[in-house]
């Protein structure tokens, strides 16, 4: 099965010989054993401290628990989708500023990009939660989490888009201007569509970061998966079990996003393979 990972492996290492293969088998067995022992130790600690008791886990047999977590998950997905969409829009705008022909605009684009990338998401959230209302800017709860998360991601989106645009061969621009196309047409019809395709996998991966940043929703009391988990914990006094289940849900969603990104990367590679 040809995919991005095996390509990198092939580029970095030569194919192992018989002795190397034996060493790999031994190392694999040893590390699996070590992981098994570690897992057993952790489970034992849970057992000893009573974390595996029925009372911590029985809440997961009732439908209302799952419904409540489901509502939280829906809140997380909505906030992440909105934040992701706004981050892409802002990112595009920042990149356009940064690539502008006017020096002042380029400078503003670069400065805003650095601000977005340099300031922690939580600070942006505090700004819209605590500072902005004092100046009359009162956002709905949903946007109090979605907007700061979007702003925080937009700088990275801008830089990812810019790297894609810069990766488009110069010949594409030369061919387009030779036809008499103007700068904006060359950029939007020829260069940007190709650059966007180059970085689509990275843009999808950025959604993972956006989704994880939405866990700050508890700050503004927005009902996301994490916030609802906290409610469950305080109702059932079941810290470990709830966090474990919620972590698994986050892992699953982010795993799906990463698979989507790999899928996009492989699709692009297949398109390019014709070139050889």
């Amino acid at each position, binding site marked *: 099965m040809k995919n991005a990972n095996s390509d990198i492996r092939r580029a970095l290492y030569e194919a192992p010989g018989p002795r190397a293969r034996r060493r790999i088998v031994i190392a694999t067995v040893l590390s699996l054993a070590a992981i098994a022992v570690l897992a057993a130790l952790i489970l034992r600690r849970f057992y000893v401290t009573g974390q595996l008791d029925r009372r911590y886990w029985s809440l997961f047999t009732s439908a209302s628990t799952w419904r409540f977590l489901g509502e939280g998950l829906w809140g997380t997905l909505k906030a992440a989708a909105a934040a992701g969409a706004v981050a892409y829009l802002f990112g595009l705008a920042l990149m356009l500023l940064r690539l502008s022909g006017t020096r002042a605009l380029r400078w503003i684009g670069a400065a805003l990009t650095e601000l977005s990338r340099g300031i922690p998401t939580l600070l942006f959230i505090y700004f819209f939660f605590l500072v902005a209302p004092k100046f009359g800017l009162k956002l709905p709860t949903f946007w109090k989490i979605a907007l700061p998360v979007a702003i925080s991601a937009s700088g990275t989106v801008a830089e990812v888009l810019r790297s894609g645009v810069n990766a488009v*061969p110069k*010949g*594409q621009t*030369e*061919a*387009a*201007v*030779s*036809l*008499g*196309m*103007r700068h904006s*047409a060359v950029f939007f*019809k*020829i260069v940007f*569509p*190709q650059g966007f*395709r180059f970085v689509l996998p990275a843009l999808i991966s950025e959604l993972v970061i956006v989704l994880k940043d939405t866990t700050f929703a508890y700050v503004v009391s927005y009902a996301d998966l994490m916030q609802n988990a906290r409610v469950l914990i305080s109702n059932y006094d079941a810290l470990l079990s709830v966090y474990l289940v919620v972590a698994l849900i986050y892992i699953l969603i982010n795993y799906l996003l990463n698979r989507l990104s790999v899928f996009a990367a492989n699709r692009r590679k297949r*398109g*390019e*393979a*014709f*070139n050889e």
Partner: protein
Amino acid sequence: MSENRSALAPLIELRHVDKHYGSLRVLKDITLSVHKGEVVAIIGPSGSGKSTLCRTINRLETIDSGEIVIDGEVLPQEGKKLAELRAQVGMVFQSFNLFAHKTILDNVIVGPREVLHTPKKAAEEEAMRLLKRVGVEEQARKVPAQLSGGQQQRVAIARSLAMHPKAILFDEPTSALDPEMIGEVLDVITELAKDGMTMVIVTHEMNFARRVADRIIFMEDGAILEENTPEAFFTEPKTQRARDFLNTLKDRDK
């Protein structure tokens, strides 16, 4: 009236063109005219400045001094005027530079659609006619990466023809091709020459240059050393440098 003007004045004219890369002078006082319907081949060793010269004609390379005139108009420095002039001069590149994300058909219609504002249907019909003319109409729905180099270069020529250019510049059109594909591209260019297209061709294909060109320009170290008819240039070149260059090629072919 403009017919009259172009019959007298050269279609492309370079007057005392100079260009530097830092302290390196890559074009030295180049003066050259190309008349309507003329085919001019520029030959010379690698690094002689022939590609750079070709690329200055539609300002893909800027010049430091001198003047470039196309059909009576001084080549503008920027903006709408420059775009309009570029639209009138086709360019075919060594590495084809087809738009990688567009189908073959879309590659040919994008110029007419964006620049000449030709209606879609008319642009497509003409594109198919041109693709047929260069023998790749079967590939119209594919993307460039699915075509051979020879096919891609023929599409690039069709893309350029779709703009109804007054002249076409060829920057080493066969240098990136596998040997078995060179012929198919040269055949297309030869056909264009027969139809009276004005062309400036930078090439390493000596037999082709001799067969197709009306005039040979020999360049070395950024200067034009010799301008001659093909027959005279290849049988009895005027300069020692040109003789040496042709002899190296002969030795290599032995």
